[in-house]
């Protein structure tokens, strides 16, 4: 059994392309070409080159000595926080902008919640000199002002999504509507392993560089490619998909996905999709999502804007349902505490999203000689105001 997508884009019962006919030609064009393009030597070369010289890859695999001592196990941090723009998101946007160029597209659209993916998209569009429109919920625009400014400085147009709940899911709807209205010249750069096939698989492949490097780096450090566990936070699930990718079909490597419990799983203010979600359709994908009994998609909550999505990618729905992945949910308070702890013990200020992954060590115990790799998906600069408010700094 494989935990990768099959050729129709299904992970077990999850995935597929539940899209209106208006999107069929766009998605079909991508589906027919993405693997072939990704395998072209010229594509690979340019992608590798940019990851190295522009993004700053490989990112270090850092043995966190003091954190390991505290939790009595061997913790490595995969330093995606050191990527250009401050998070793993740029691995995907570099890949997709090159894909868009190969497909002859001259206009890019994207959705963003916290603004991380929007910034990563605006960045690569500036790099390539391509027009860029980013949809962002009206509410998120108000609460993520620095990233809105960054996108504007990078030359992107930020359009407010004013429909529905005016947050990430609505920004995604608006981006999809834009694509329906501009089917020929536009490529939609989705920011996570969500959406209709082939997006989840394509984005996972672009992010798979994370686990490719972990394998090599662990070999240097520990004399083996496989850790005992890989841990990552899951919003839509792209950093997790990248960190898990080359271990999916290696059962001896434990996979731990960490979701945002917000104010508590049953508080009514949570984004713990595996615990609260049911099978349904969101943004063209059959997956687990938070919804009312009537099938209306509900608004999630997390202190971290990047984990504030009412679904998870179909890969993760399958990892959960099949039992291959262990799913843990972490509250706002637990995450904030773990974030501050990393600052104090290792001198690294993590993104609040990543802090969720770090927070599992409080309750989830590992053996002393277990090798546990935590994907540190982003840095905390963007979250400074949140940290300031929370800790009264």
């Amino acid at each position, binding site marked *: 059994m494989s935990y990768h997508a099959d050729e129709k884009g299904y992970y077990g019962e999850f995935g*597929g*392309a*539940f*899209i*209106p*006919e*208006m999107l*069929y*030609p766009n998605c079909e064009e991508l589906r027919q070409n993405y693997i072939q393009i990704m395998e072209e030597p010229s594509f690979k070369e340019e992608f590798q080159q940019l990851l190295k010289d522009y993004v700053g890859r490989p990112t270090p695999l850092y043995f966190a000595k003091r954190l390991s001592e505290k939790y009595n196990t061997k913790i490595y941090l995969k330093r995606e926080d050191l990527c250009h723009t401050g998070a793993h998101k740029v691995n995907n946007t570099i890949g997709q902008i090159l894909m868009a160029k190969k497909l002859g597209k001259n206009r890019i659209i994207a959705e963003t919640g916290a603004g991380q993916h929007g910034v990563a998209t605006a960045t690569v569009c500036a790099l390539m000199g391509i027009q860029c429109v980013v949809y962002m919920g009206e509410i998120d625009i108000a609460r993520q002002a620095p990233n809105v400014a960054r996108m504007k400085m990078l030359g992107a147009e930020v359009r407010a999504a004013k*429909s*529905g709940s005016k947050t990430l*899911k*609505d920004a995604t*709807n608006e981006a*999809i*509507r834009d694509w*329906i*209205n*501009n*089917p*020929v010249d536009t490529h939609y750069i989705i920011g996570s392993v969500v959406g209709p096939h082939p997006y989840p698989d394509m984005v996972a492949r672009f992010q798979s560089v994370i686990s490719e490097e972990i394998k090599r780096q662990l070999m240097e450090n520990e004399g083996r490619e496989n850790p005992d566990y890989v841990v990552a936070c899951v919003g839509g699930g792209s950093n997790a998909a990248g960190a898990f990718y080359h271990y999916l079909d290696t059962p001896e490597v434990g996979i731990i996905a960490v979701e945002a419990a917000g104010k508590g799983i049953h508080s009514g203010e949570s984004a713990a999709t595996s615990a609260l979600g*049911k*099978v*349904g*359709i*969101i*943004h*063209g994908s059959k997956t687990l999502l938070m*919804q009312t*009994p*009537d*099938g*209306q*998609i*509900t608004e999630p909550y997390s202190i971290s804007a990047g984990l504030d999505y009412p679904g998870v990618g179909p890969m993760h729905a399958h990892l959960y349902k099949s039992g291959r992945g262990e799913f843990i949910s972490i509250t706002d308070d637990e995450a904030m505490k773990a974030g501050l702890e990393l600052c104090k013990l290792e001198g690294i200020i993590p993104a609040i999203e990543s802090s969720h992954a770090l927070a599992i060590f409080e309750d989830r115990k590992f053996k002393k000689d277990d090798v546990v790799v935590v994907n540190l998906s982003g840095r905390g600069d963007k979250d400074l105001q949140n940290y300031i408010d929370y800790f009264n700094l």
Partner: protein
Amino acid sequence: MNRIKQKLSEDKKILSIYFTAGYPKLDDTVQIIQDLEKSGVDLIEIGLPFSDPLADGPTIQESSTAALKNGMHSELLFEQIKDIRKSVSIPLILMGYFNPVLQYGVEKFCQKCEKIGIDGLILPDLPLDVYQEEYEALFKKHGLINVFLITPQTSDERIKAIDDASEGFIYMVSSASTTGAKSGFGQEQSAYFERIANMNLKNPQIVGFGISNAETFNQATEKAKGAIIGSAFIKHLTENGVDSIGGFVRQIR
């Protein structure tokens, strides 16, 4: 015979009207259906509101959000229209997104439709291949016609596959766009209408998206069997409530 097929066999242009159930007021559903029939409309699409209608423009989005806020949901809609066949004989189609149907239970949903006298479904995000593999037999068992969409970007090959899978009419989306009334049709649309007419499909086509008045209705039905009005009717309801539905329809034809 299915009421949709019967209507399509008549020698006339079809006027189909879409409205969102639960809008403007929660209990307007039955009156809207009855008044549309009285006004001489040929076919009605009852919209089941959804929180994330990604193929719809602002007008239908807003009516959906308002309908949900009013308290509309699948079971309530079925309850409201359970006796509708006592008062109307017009073909009725339910139009909505797939997730609410999935949560209701597709089989239970189809049973309910059959019992009430619904004639067909339009579920834009239920793709052709999934329909054929998983649901076709079920829809047919309950006498429901499933309507597929085509757009100006749909390839001839795929249009033929959709024609083969269809048995009522094909919903011909007028341009690459979400729903919403536009100012009119241009050369691009004429060429597209012409191309489809020349394909001699086995199913008649009904044009939707961007039809808002007599002029666009006539343009759309020059080649096609009929046309669908959605956003323009919703706007009319927003401005006038449910009291002058006949007046709206008479402006069209």
